[in-house]
């Protein structure tokens, strides 16, 4: 860890948690973030770079990094792994055609050393749309049976209606907090 990182950690007044939102393009990452921040979710354009949103949540300061998911952008995800405590993987539950893509990209992340300690929350998004796969079906398709020690969970949600979004966030924050802040409460 570098000198600046150390100073940043020591000086941070609130307990901070860094979350990284990734997933295929059009999965609904930005919409979920907007929903969490209480912003208008009716129009969202594809993210071509990244956005950082800061949110106060249960006494923690969450820094949510929302990075674009288009094919050409995925190779840049690696630049955001450092110090990520929670990984939020968003799936468009209606996009059956690209489930294979989705599985491949997710499994790539799971073998990343820098993300090895990160808690994983999978959002089965767009549950409000007809034709959405259930979280059980998605799990089967994603073949997540070899997760080892990782803390992970799948939560059904809708970024548009907000259903399930808060529940997922609560879980991921609680899990991370128990892991990294249990000794200095």
């Amino acid at each position, binding site marked *: *860890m*570098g*000198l*600046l*990182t*150390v*100073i*940043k950690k*020591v*000086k941070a007044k609130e307990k901070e948690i860094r979350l990284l939102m990734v997933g295929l393009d059009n999965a609904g990452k930005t919409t979920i973030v907007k929903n969490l921040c209480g912003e208008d979710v009716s129009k969202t354009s594809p*993210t*071509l*770079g*990244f*956005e*950082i949103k800061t949110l106060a949540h249960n006494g923690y300061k969450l820094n949510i990094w929302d990075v*674009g998911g288009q094919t050409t*952008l995925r190779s*840049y995800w690696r*630049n*955001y792994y450092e110090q990520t405590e929670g990984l939020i993987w968003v799936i468009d539950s209606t996009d059956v055609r690209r489930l294979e893509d989705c599985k491949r990209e997710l499994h790539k992340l799971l073998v990343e050393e820098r993300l090895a300690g990160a808690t994983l929350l999978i959002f089965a998004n767009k549950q409000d749309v007809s034709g959405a796969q259930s979280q059980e079906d998605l799990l089967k398709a994603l073949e997540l049976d070899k997760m080892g020690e990782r803390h992970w969970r799948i939560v059904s949600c809708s970024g548009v209606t907000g259903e399930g979004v808060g529940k997922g966030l609560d879980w991921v924050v609680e899990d991370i907090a128990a892991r990294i802040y249990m000794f200095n409460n």
Partner: protein
Amino acid sequence: MVELPELENEILAGEVYDEEDLAADDNESFFEVVDSGEGQNERTNLIDAVVGKLEDILVDESFESVRLRFCEENCLIFEEGEENKLEYTEAFRSFSDLVETTLVENLKAEFPDFTVSWFCDLLKDKPCDGEVFDMLFSLSDFEEFKQMMLDFKKREGGDGVAVSRMKIYSEEQEDGDHRPDLDLSSLHIRPLAN
């Protein structure tokens, strides 16, 4: 700067607690606080020296010119707006590396034992307050970095004079009268003979 009086009080309190644990609970008014010194003072002096050196590095002209050159070379990719371009991340990384290298090299030159963990041990339990740490904190933050680049770009757009002071996050003024900051952009100091 580290506030000396406060630090010393803390050290004294700590020492008393360690040595007179039980007595402290029962008759608090009976013992005198004596600074037995030694290791603790040495550490305080070392902390002062390190913080002083950090300050020297940060205000040094060579660091400032490196920073300005970096801004000049990289500010054009920055644009107002909430969404960030992926290139910002690369620029931020280069900038962090630049700052980190400058700090570490200069600290090593003065304190041969310096490593990041040595620094952590030294400052353990000490409040990292003061302008130096505020400045270092600003330098380590992505949003501050983005703002610095945008400010630089905006100013440079004018008459070609590219000067911007580093933005410093700081606490409220605690004592004394508030004075406006020195406008360093209009201040020129030249050595008498050159």
